[in-house]
């Protein structure tokens, strides 16, 4: 899955010579920018302090901001996220790290039942301005319990904003938006993209949550992707171009708010749509997007709606098996080619 770790989707033309930043560095930089701006921003999580995080996404924070703003925790996911919630309700803007997104299952009550509901069930008396950051996704041979794309777990629960950037600049801009948001945000950082490089974000860069990015314009088919599937979709579009199929590529960037406006506008141009999802087909976000399109965009359609999604199995360990499960450029190309002839 080399394409996942080296691609630089969305890099403006000519930026190659400019300074580049990795996605991994962008995480720490995005958090640091907000910590500099706002003294109520604090971080907590396992091994995030002196160790700089197991993915090295919090390197430098302890040094710059000290132990009163960067807190190492026990292995207590419920306490981490529950404490973040209590702090967010009382004037702070905590940024909690859950090391692997699979471990969200260990504090799922907070994500499913507490954080997204407390504002509503108190009739708006409290807000919960927190960010739960987590390393998401597969392709690295980490096996069934450390590889899942779990954004769909969160997507089943109204009341959570869901961010999943695909580029370093978006990491910084969306981190700013997430931390400044008065609503809770689950921030999915993709493990397969940590090493990816891209142009740095200008000072003050903020990417509003809920705005998809059209990364490549095209006339024949719309590909909608998220996070690590964005470089896959872009690579597929390149290959399809050689076959005279002109694909538009949309990076959703967020699941909530879901930018159906951008997707439907694209569909109006292309009349064909394929989602590219890392997650299993069953229960994936692409299904919800497709259901919006199959209803509100039905009249625009010239062909079936298709989803390239993960197989409905746990993630296997071996590369050869994992590649069979997660969408690849080949699989996207094959599905789109087939659709183009419909």
């Amino acid at each position, binding site marked *: 899955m080399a394409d996942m770790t080296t691609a630089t989707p969305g890099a403006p033309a000519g930026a190659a010579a400019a300074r580049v930043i990795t996605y991994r560095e962008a995480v720490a930089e995005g958090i640091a920018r907000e910590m500099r701006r706002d003294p109520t921003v604090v971080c907590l999580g396992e091994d995030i302090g002196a160790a700089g995080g197991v993915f090295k996404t919090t390197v430098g924070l302890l040094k710059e901001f000290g132990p009163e703003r960067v807190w190492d925790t026990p292995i207590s996911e419920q306490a981490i996220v529950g404490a973040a919630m*209590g*702090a967010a*309700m*009382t004037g702070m803007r905590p940024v909690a790290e859950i090391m692997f997104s699979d471990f969200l299952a260990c504090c799922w*009550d907070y994500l499913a039942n507490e954080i997204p509901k407390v504002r509503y069930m108190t009739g708006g008396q409290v807000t919960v301005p927190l960010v739960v950051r987590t390393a998401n996704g597969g392709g690295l041979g980490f096996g069934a319990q450390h590889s899942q794309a779990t954004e769909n777990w969160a997507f089943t629960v109204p009341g959570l904003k869901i961010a999943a950037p695909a580029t370093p600049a978006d990491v910084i801009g969306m981190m700013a938006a997430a931390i400044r948001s008065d609503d809770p945000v689950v921030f999915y950082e993709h493990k397969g993209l940590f090493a990816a490089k891209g142009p740095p974000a200008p000072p003050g860069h903020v990417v509003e949550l809920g705005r998809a990015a059209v990364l490549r314009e095209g006339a024949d088919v719309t590909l909608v992707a998220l996070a690590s599937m964005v470089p896959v979709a872009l690579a597929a579009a390149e290959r399809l171009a050689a076959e005279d199929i002109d694909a538009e590529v949309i990076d959703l960037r967020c699941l909530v708010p879901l930018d159906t406006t951008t997707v439907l506008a694209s569909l109006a141009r292309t009349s064909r749509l394929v989602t590219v999802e890392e997650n299993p087909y069953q229960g994936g976000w692409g299904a919800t997007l497709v259901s*919006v399109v199959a209803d509100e965009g039905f009249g625009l359609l010239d062909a079936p709606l298709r989803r390239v999604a993960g197989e409905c199995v746990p993630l296997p360990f071996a590369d050869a098996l994992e590649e069979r499960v997660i969408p690849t450029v080949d699989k996207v190309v094959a599905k789109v080619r087939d659709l183009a002839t419909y």
Partner: protein
Amino acid sequence: MKADELLAAYEQMALVRRTERAAHDLFMSGLVKGTTHLAAGHEAIAVGASAALRPDDYVFATYRGHHHALARGATPEECLAELMSRATGLCGAKGGSMHLTKAASGMLGSYAIVGAHLPMAAGAAWSARLRGTDQIAVAFFGDGATNIGAFHEALNLAAVWKLPVLFVCENNLYMEYTPIADVTAVPRPAADRAAAYGVEGQVVDGNDVVLVREAVARLADRARAGYGPGLLEAETYRHFGHSRADPATYRPAEEVERWLKHDPLDLARGRLRALGVPAEAVDEADARVAEAVAAAVEAARNAPAPDPREALTDVWADGGAAWRT
């Protein structure tokens, strides 16, 4: 507690008792939907603790939380209106009995997933410390909550970070219908776990408002002074069943009788007598309470239902509920 303080506490407890009675009657007559978990019998814990707290401290309660809402300053009308699905309820009828909240007075909510609010209280205490205030946070929870993972994680984190948070267990001997002793490895579900977190475990008669106030005051002082969390196990008993119309037949008659004789209001009355407070003063308090609750029931009854459009507000901080563009 001085006589006037105790009288005030008594009146607050009587207000809780009356309000719970009213809630029960309203439920039975079909005016309260869903469920209720009444705290009659637990009054001294909420009122005694509140007397030891500052107005800017934070309280987190459970689905059995009417007494905490009232003790922190919610009015019977706000509470009953919420139970009766009125727009004037504490949460605009979005929360219901299990989620009474009065954030403006530091009552940061009632949580209905057992144990979930313990880490939140630790977080509020952490926040107080980060903001450099000397507020503390208190989580009230049942004996049953001591066997869930969040209890363990919250206690450990609070102890390691020396957070100004108190964990107050309202041990009423039962989960829903199962005796806590049947499912707990130690006799004191909370206090016997304290040492596992390097904190002191203390048991108090949770029906004696004076003892509760003292115990909480001591732990609150320690926490405020930076000595870390406190864990208090307050023994009590519920007068009603677990919820709704539960007749609580699983409780032995002698046990019920013994505890009803050890009633928080009776105990306070005895103490008032001993302090020389005239019986009329107590009667007057009772009369004020009766009137207040009757008026509250009336007002709540007459309050409007929520506008159905309110169902689609309050999800996000902008007041709305839009999940897509």
